[in-house]
């Protein structure tokens, strides 16, 4: 009997299959053999657990830092190992035993069983997130099992077999193994070779026809060979290389903040069987958008916890993806709970615009907002946006020498400042404002009933989360509810705040751009302006936009835009096109939570890397990347149907992402020229 070393997984499996007939029993090592860990050092998983215990200790009034918890755990575990060494050959420790002692020490209490259960669940959850089954080896294990061979999983680790079974089940092959054995239960480990006689006795195994497979030349090679069974040792060069790379990223990230985001991504990456060929859109969602959205969501969570914000409303429709990301990422980041409630709120600029006028009337600023999109031109566009009946204003318009089609936008020919002055005079007319309030009253009432239903007024402080850009949804929302006594303080978090029109911030209603905010000079962040539609499409919910709120005898109804017209169909087509991108984002969400929790970093740490990502993917993208991810159709009901005269091609292509493929490919220094133009524009702002 002896053992053979194999330098790749495939050569080991090939040799194993060749000899399989000789064996009736196969025992597999678990870690670094059947499963690998995403990180190079298994101890890294202990730090988030220490943070969890530290957070819980603060809540229970026994404040202790995560570092001290970690030190305590190490000390107690070492002591347990030394004590075990007095009676056994192996210096093993058992997780429930030493962790109970750690918790007793931290919380100064003898009854910590409930807490131990929570801590254990979180540690196992983090382990589950970090382990990846080796697809080829698991496939062979399943083959052996189906051939009627007895298959066992044996591990030298502090986690007892009951915990290992949970990990093996998560890895997806518990049904193919007869039992899972851990050294933590018996303190008889493979390292001393004592585990093998134990197995022989417990399961009545014969040394003949017994093969052991593992990665440690001593525990999995020499010891079984000494015991008299065959062994195969995996000495995988590729796996060593992967770990060396991961180790560099994690170590560099400690000293160089630039690498923190890259280290995060290294831990989020799919390995082994997870790493399948995927469409370009999926890859961009997973490797480009997901980390940035993750940083955005994590920042909101931190702000809400620190600011005692008790409910977050993710605003339709981009909030849909943010909310789903939150649901997947937060269990790893906040195992201790303490997070605000979350809710998806059906709103839109069009739906809230009318409701915002029910109590304050149509303000000068809101009338001005209607003319920000170049497609809007006259009073009919104001009526369309604020849900007003244009014909009912005929006499008022005549009073101010205006017509329904009088040009009121400076972007269109025929504009006369005198008409703008006349409009502003009309806005001060009480008759006009009374008519506006009368017409928008029912929609406002329906909206308030909906908001009451979702508990908007049940909290003192709420957050609203949206993609961007001007903050008009939040502006209209606040104006529609601010008259109520129970109106909560509203904290707005936008992915990007372009602030094309000044936002009226006050202590009860403020707004922050997280990834980009025009109020902060952030050159890399400003590249989101290159492809705003991309972020909207990537996050958009798969339901049509909300047109408004309708008052009904029973309460209210949400009125969605039709989907059977040309625009509706185009939008459906667009949703299908972007489905892989959104799937990539959501698939990465859980991994973001686990990876970020393991690293213990936040958005500020990741920002240098996100800046690089945005610069390279938005301002200096490859032509192939633009071709595969830029949008085809983008619906904006706020925008009217009027055409603005443009001057030549230059006016048509205002952003790199609008240029035709041949220009992107062959125009010399196009990206650099456009970036310098972008740079000038930002400085001029």
């Amino acid at each position, binding site marked *: 009997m002896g053992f053979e070393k194999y*330098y790749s997984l495939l050569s080991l499996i090939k040799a194993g299959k060749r000899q399989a007939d000789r064996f009736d029993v196969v025992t597999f090592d678990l870690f670094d053999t059947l499963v690998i860990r995403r990180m190079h050092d298994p101890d890294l998983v202990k730090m988030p657990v220490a943070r969890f215990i530290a957070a819980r200790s603060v809540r229970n009034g026994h404040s202790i830092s995560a570092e001290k918890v970690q030190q305590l755990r190490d000390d107690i575990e070492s002591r347990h190992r030394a004590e075990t060494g007095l009676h056994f050959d192996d210096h093993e420790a058992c997780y429930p035993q030493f962790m109970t002692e750690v918790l007793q020490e931290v919380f100064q209490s003898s009854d910590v069983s409930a807490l131990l259960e929570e801590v254990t669940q979180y540690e196992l959850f983090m382990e589950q997130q970090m382990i990846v089954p080796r697809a080829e080896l698991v496939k062979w294990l399943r083959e052996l099992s189906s051939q009627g061979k007895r298959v066992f999983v044996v591990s030298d680790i502090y986690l007892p077999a009951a915990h290992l079974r949970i990990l093996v089940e998560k890895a997806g092959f518990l049904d193919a193994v007869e039992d899972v054995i851990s050294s933590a239960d018996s303190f008889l480990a493979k390292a001393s070779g004592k585990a093998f006689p134990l197995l022989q006795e417990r399961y009545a195994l014969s040394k003949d026809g017994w093969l052991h497979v593992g990665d440690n030349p001593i525990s999995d090679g020499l010891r079984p060979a000494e015991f008299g069974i065959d062994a195969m040792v995996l000495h995988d060069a590729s796996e060593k290389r992967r770990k060396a790379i991961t180790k560099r990223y994690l170590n560099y990230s400690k000293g160089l903040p*630039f690498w923190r985001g890259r280290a995060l991504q290294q831990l989020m990456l799919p390995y082994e069987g997870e*790493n399948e060929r995927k469409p370009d859109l999926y890859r961009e969602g997973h490797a480009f958008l997901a980390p940035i959205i993750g940083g955005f969501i994590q920042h909101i969570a931190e702000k809400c916890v620190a600011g005692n914000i008790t409910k977050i409303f993710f605003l339709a429709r981009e909030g849909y993806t943010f909310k789903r990301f939150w649901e997947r990422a937060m269990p790893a980041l906040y195992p201790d709970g303490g997070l605000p409630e979350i809710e998806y709120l059906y709103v839109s600029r069009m739906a809230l615009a009318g409701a915002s006028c029910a109590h304050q009337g149509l303000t000068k600023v809101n009338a001005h907002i209607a003319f920000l999109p170049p497609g809007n031109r006259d009073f009919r566009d104001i009526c369309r946006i604020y849900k007003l009946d244009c014909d009912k204003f005929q006499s008022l318009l005549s009073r101010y020498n205006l017509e329904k089609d009088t040009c009121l936008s400076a972007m269109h020919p025929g504009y006369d400042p005198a008409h703008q002055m006349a409009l502003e005079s009309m806005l001060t007319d009480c008759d006009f404002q009374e008519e506006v309030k009368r017409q928008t009253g029912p929609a406002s009432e329906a909206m308030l009933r909906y908001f009451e239903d979702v508990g908007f007024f049940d909290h003192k402080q709420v957050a609203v989360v949206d993609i961007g850009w001007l903050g008009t949804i939040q502006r209209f929302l606040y104006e529609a509810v601010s008259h109520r006594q129970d109106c909560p303080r509203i904290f707005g978090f936008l992915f990007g705040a372009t602030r094309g029109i000044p936002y009226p911030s006050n202590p009860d209603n403020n707004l922050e751009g997280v990834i980009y905010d025009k109020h902060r000079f952030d*050159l890399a962040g400003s590249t989101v302006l290159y492809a705003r539609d991309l972020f909207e499409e990537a996050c958009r919910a798969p339901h049509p936009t909300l047109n408004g709120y309708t008052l009904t005898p029973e309460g209210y109804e949400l009125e969605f835009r039709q989907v059977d017209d040309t625009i509706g169909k185009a939008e459906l087509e667009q949703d299908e096109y972007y489905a892989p991108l959104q799937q990539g984002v959501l698939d990465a969400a859980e991994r973001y939570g686990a990876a970020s929790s393991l690293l213990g970093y936040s958005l500020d740490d990741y920002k240098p890397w996100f800046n*690089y990502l945005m*610069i390279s993917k938005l301002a200096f993208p490859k032509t192939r990347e633009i071709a595969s991810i830029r949008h085809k159709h983008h619906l904006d009901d706020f925008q009217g149907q009027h055409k603005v005269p443009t001057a030549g091609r230059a006016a048509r292509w205002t952003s790199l992402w609008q240029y035709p493929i041949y220009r992107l490919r062959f125009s010399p220094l196009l990206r650099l020229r456009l970036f310098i133009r972008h740079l000038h524009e930002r400085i001029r702002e």
Partner: protein
Amino acid sequence: MKRILNNNFDLTGSEVFRISRTYILSRFIPLGNFNSGPNLRCLFTLAVLHYFSRPIFWIMVRQEQLVTRSYNTMKQIVQSRR
């Protein structure tokens, strides 16, 4: 259709060479705040690990004792010079 993690354990679409190119460009025109930046030595090490280390690890796993001995000797020399 490509894999997110390429055969060299690098991130498809944000490979270490692309990072290097962007970093070099950032030395000439302001691209934004990269904080510390990636550091040339780190970039070099990562480029070697990602793209040229396959034969190194091939030898390393086969001659582990020799490699470990050589590494320790080198480490001692470097430390003694400090």
